[in-house]
């Protein structure tokens, strides 16, 4: 599906009013390869909803779940809030970086994985926890991380 199609589908589904902007952006992001809201789509939304482009861009960059930069097919978000910190989230960051061979904020060369921080995802009972796309993985350690990455790689290829 091309981008124009994705954008108009999202607007049809969520509603053609200004207050639905965030819902529309989330919808586009979930349907776009690379887990992001491409800059060109912002222009299309701006025209369809009759909102200034600057405003659409403002909303798309204000909310942490929305990204205007291309991410991995699996966007790995590591919680860096206090409860996960107490349970060792900084070690988890190192392990992910090592296993994937990329740094925080980067995407693997094959476009499969990206690493970023997130604020509390409400999985503090499973700390340290990460969110990969819509799914939460908790009580992480090195073995578990290796296992998760391997199974996602298998499922994705």
């Amino acid at each position: 599906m091309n981008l124009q199609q994705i954008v108009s589908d999202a607007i049809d589904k969520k509603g053609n009013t200004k207050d639905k902007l965030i819902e529309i952006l989330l919808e586009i992001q979930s349907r776009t390869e690379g887990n992001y809201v491409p800059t060109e789509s912002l222009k299309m939304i701006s025209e369809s909803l009759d909102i200034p482009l600057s405003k659409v861009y403002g909303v798309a960059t204000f909310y942490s779940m929305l990204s205007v930069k291309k991410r991995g097919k699996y966007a790995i978000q590591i919680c860096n809030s206090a409860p996960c910190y107490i349970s060792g989230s900084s070690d988890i960051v190192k392990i992910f970086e090592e296993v994937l061979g990329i740094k925080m904020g980067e995407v693997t060369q094959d476009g499969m994985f990206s690493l970023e921080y997130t604020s509390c995802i409400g999985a503090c009972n499973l700390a340290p926890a990460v969110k990969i796309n819509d799914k939460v993985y908790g009580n992480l350690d090195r073995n578990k991380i290796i296992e998760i990455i391997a199974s996602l790689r298998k499922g994705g290829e």
Partner: protein
Amino acid sequence: MVNLISRLCGKLDPLSIYDYREKGGFKSLEKVLFKMKPIDVIDEIKKSNLKGRGGAAFPTGLKWQFVSMEESDEKYVICNADEGEPGTFKDKILLDGCPFQIIEGMLIAGYAVGAKKGFIYIRGEYPKSKELLIEAVDILKKEGYLGDNILSSDFSFDIEIRSGAGAYVCGEETALIESIEGEPGRSRFKPPYPPNKGLWGKPTLVNNVETLANIPVILEIGAENYKKYGTESSSGTKLISVSGSVVNKGVYEVEFGITLREIIYDICGGLIEDRKLKFLQIGGSSGVCIPADMLDLRLDFDEFRKHDIGLGSGAILVVDENTCVVDFIKVTSEFFEHESCGKCTPCREGNYHIVRILKRIAEGKGSKRDLDLLKNISDVMQQCSLCGLGQAAPTALITTMKYFKEEYEEHLKGYCRAGKCTFKGGVLDE
């Protein structure tokens, strides 16, 4: 532990209206619609002494009264399901366990204040809970509990589900309202408060998930019976979320009046690996850090207030001796630096500079002047920030500088007792 508000969670299929009715669901709604005037409902809630469970502990009945007194054809009820306070995951239990109970609370609130439309604003990090809510609303529409002339009465009410997209500040009610309107979630100037001018400028009631889940229970058992739970100043129960270095992390419903010691050692089984408790952070990242010698405090709004503690969302983070206070506060401050919406200067710049200074101290480059600066900046933020985020952001910093002053001072001398901070010449021994 008690089972009052969360008594149905896990005991029924969350989407079975049959199960819910079987267990007494919608009885309170029926009672309200057919036997009570809106003013009676508000009186009953006021009598119950219910205080908001989202963090600010504002008397719920009074808030309802403010909205009901406004003259307007259009009013809104918003359920704040944007629990973003780090360490808080109690609303999720209610959202996933019994969405009908929350919606019943919203319906009763709508009837009491004269609103016909409600929104549930749920954080984007809970996609499954959101799907569940959408299904729950669809089912209730089909069953005649939502829509026009509910249960053939004159009362009509509809609910729309809206998603957040990862912004802590949207838990603040005016930022939440901005977000529903499709704007970046930046707090508004107050007054006017939402009960006067809220969503699209109309009178708006914003209540937390847990607060709304209390409503059907109060009306079912009556305010007097409800007040038998808890203490004189704090009626009812509270859902607390315990996390950190504790054996049993999780959400527990407790009666007000329980001590922190009972929560940590009796309910949660103490600290992992028998570590020593360093401090508790109460109410999430925006809450106070209190040392181990204050464990006998009772969970009670008045008793907490005497010690300048807010119960907040009911999050309790257990921190052990292996943690460096300075590093912990640095992480907390980085959170606020990231989550500040940037609208007001004290919060935007204050958090930025606090992080800078704490980094300096953690690297062993701090000076006595830095500690004075931290106090000064915190003071300005508390006094002058536009919303609760900026006002509460330095709370943990201020309280740790009070209770763990010597640890900050040690860092100035290049010593970190937890061995966490890496100084130029490595970690120094005493």
